[in-house]
């Protein structure tokens, strides 16, 4: 347990956290804005990387590969959206079905291999774990991902302020009211799922580059990490500002904190095989806290009053 090794690992954890922060922003759109738990992301968190790496191996430039990854992610979200809204399958199950189907599709994309490596020396990658230290600042992965997040947050901030974006928010807030106001809630749900999964696939494309390979298991448990980031961000930064852009940023910060904590517990000697169990426990606790607070520690003075008037 050498403290120097922990510090050496921190920049890498930061970079990973930032990339997962993009993914978590995607989860935020479905989980918080649309009020849907979308498990499709466990599939798309692999699909984006698979598409991106395979296209780059075929000679596509990195930005084009990322755009295609984004679009393929949207397609996956579209499938879940159709299953949910047009075919009446509960959102969670619709996501699971798409995710399962994607497993086969991901294998097909990766030429039936469980992983596909890409050589950082031969290809012009946007991000890589080799670009963390001892590289010019403009090539630094942490900076590049941070810029991507800022741009993404700016675009989402603008979009959810538009008429269309507002109709997605109102669908999540109150679907009955939304329909009464003429909003096609099927359409807004599908659109929200598409945007969310597009963003997750983009994160996946970056993550595969970062690791240097696309991996069939890249998305396993992704939803839990995404939720963890959303919840940690909310618990730690939620009281500071209600501003929408700030909320998205705090989701990304939540992901960084998650990876830093992960790094610390691994440094303390936790077996990396136990990480998924740890993640699940952490998320379960954070999800349970608001409910427990309400149920077991409620103060009676808060009830009644203006709310029931």
């Amino acid at each position, binding site marked *: 347990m050498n403290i120097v090794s922990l510090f050496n690992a921190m920049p890498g954890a930061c970079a990973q956290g930032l990339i997962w922060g993009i993914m978590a922003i995607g989860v935020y759109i479905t989980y918080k804005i649309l009020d849907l738990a979308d498990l499709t992301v466990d599939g798309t968190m692999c699909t984006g990387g698979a598409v991106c790496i395979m296209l780059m191996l075929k000679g596509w430039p990195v930005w084009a590969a990322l755009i295609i990854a984004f679009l393929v992610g949207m397609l996956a979200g579209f499938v879940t959206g159709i299953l949910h809204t047009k075919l009446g399958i509960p959102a969670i199950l619709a996501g699971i079905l798409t995710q399962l189907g994607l497993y086969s599709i991901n294998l097909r994309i990766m030429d039936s291999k469980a992983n596909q490596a890409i050589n950082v020396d031969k290809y012009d990658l946007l991000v890589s774990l080799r670009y963390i230290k001892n590289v010019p600042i403009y090539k630094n992965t942490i900076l590049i991902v941070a810029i991507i997040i800022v741009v993404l947050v700016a675009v989402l901030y603008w979009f959810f302020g538009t008429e269309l974006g507002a109709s997605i928010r109102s669908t999540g*807030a*109150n679907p009955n009211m939304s329909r*009464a106001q003429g909003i096609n809630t099927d359409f807004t749900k599908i659109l929200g799922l598409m945007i969310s999964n597009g963003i997750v696939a983009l994160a996946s494309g970056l993550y595969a580059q970062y690791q240097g390979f696309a991996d069939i298991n890249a998305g396993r448990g992704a939803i839990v990490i995404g939720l963890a980031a959303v919840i940690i961000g909310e618990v730690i930064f939620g009281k500071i500002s209600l501003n929408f852009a700030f909320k998205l940023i705090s989701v990304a910060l939540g992901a960084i904190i998650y990876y830093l904590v992960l790094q610390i517990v691994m440094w303390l000697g936790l077996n990396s095989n136990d990480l998924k169990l740890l993640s699940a426990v952490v998320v379960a606790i954070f999800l349970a806290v608001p409910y427990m607070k309400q149920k077991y520690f409620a103060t009676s003075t808060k009830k009644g009053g203006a709310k029931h008037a």
Partner: protein
Amino acid sequence: MLSIKGIKKTFNAGTVNEKTALNGLNLHLKEGDFVTVIGGNGAGKSTMLNAIAGTWLVDEGSILIDGVDVTKLSEHKRAKYLGRVFQDPMTGTAASMQIEENLALADRRGKKRTLKSGITAKEREYYKEQLKILDLGLENRMTAKVGLLSGGQRQALTLLMATLQKPKLLLLDEHTAALDPKTAAKVLEATDKIVAKDNLTTIMITHNMKDAIAHGNRLIMMYEGNVIYDVAGEEKQKLTVADLLKKFEEVSGSEFANDRAILT
């Protein structure tokens, strides 16, 4: 304005819970009619409004709004003709969104939602003016989340949202039932004001017989999915609660099965 012809709706058809909620209902409204609807529990009052609003499709019959056949139209497509206020104050507004955002959403009812700004500065000014009409001080809290408002404030806001884009038909489903008497009176007052201002064709369900008599120009009583009593004009003005109860027993052969209607 509104023409309902022989609509039928049966819930849970073919099961032990089968319930015929609407049984060949007919109703015709003229432009500017303000109809109050009374009836016992399960008479089909709310079901009728839901049928008009398109919450689900009716089994039989047709519904025309201002000459347009909406019988097969989905709920969100019909919304452009309709303004709705619900019984539950939580139903009509988006609690996690701001007052002005809720108004802006309602202001775009029946219009295409594009990538233009969700609310403009000009609209904000207009909404402020409109909120002043409610006389609840909401014009100074435009960016407050609607979840912070009281039930009465939310109902008044929903009423404004329902009429911001002048609807062909305003549907009020016991919109004061969940409020305390004083607030209910205030919301009813606002209702009268708004309906009169735009001469809106309105259907208002109420459990309060006095309100049913005092408001609107026409009153209908429902029983087992049908209209059993329909009265308008001067004859309606002269009605008393006792008259209505007697009428109900006469037509249905049973006692009025809604205690709230008699007690309040």
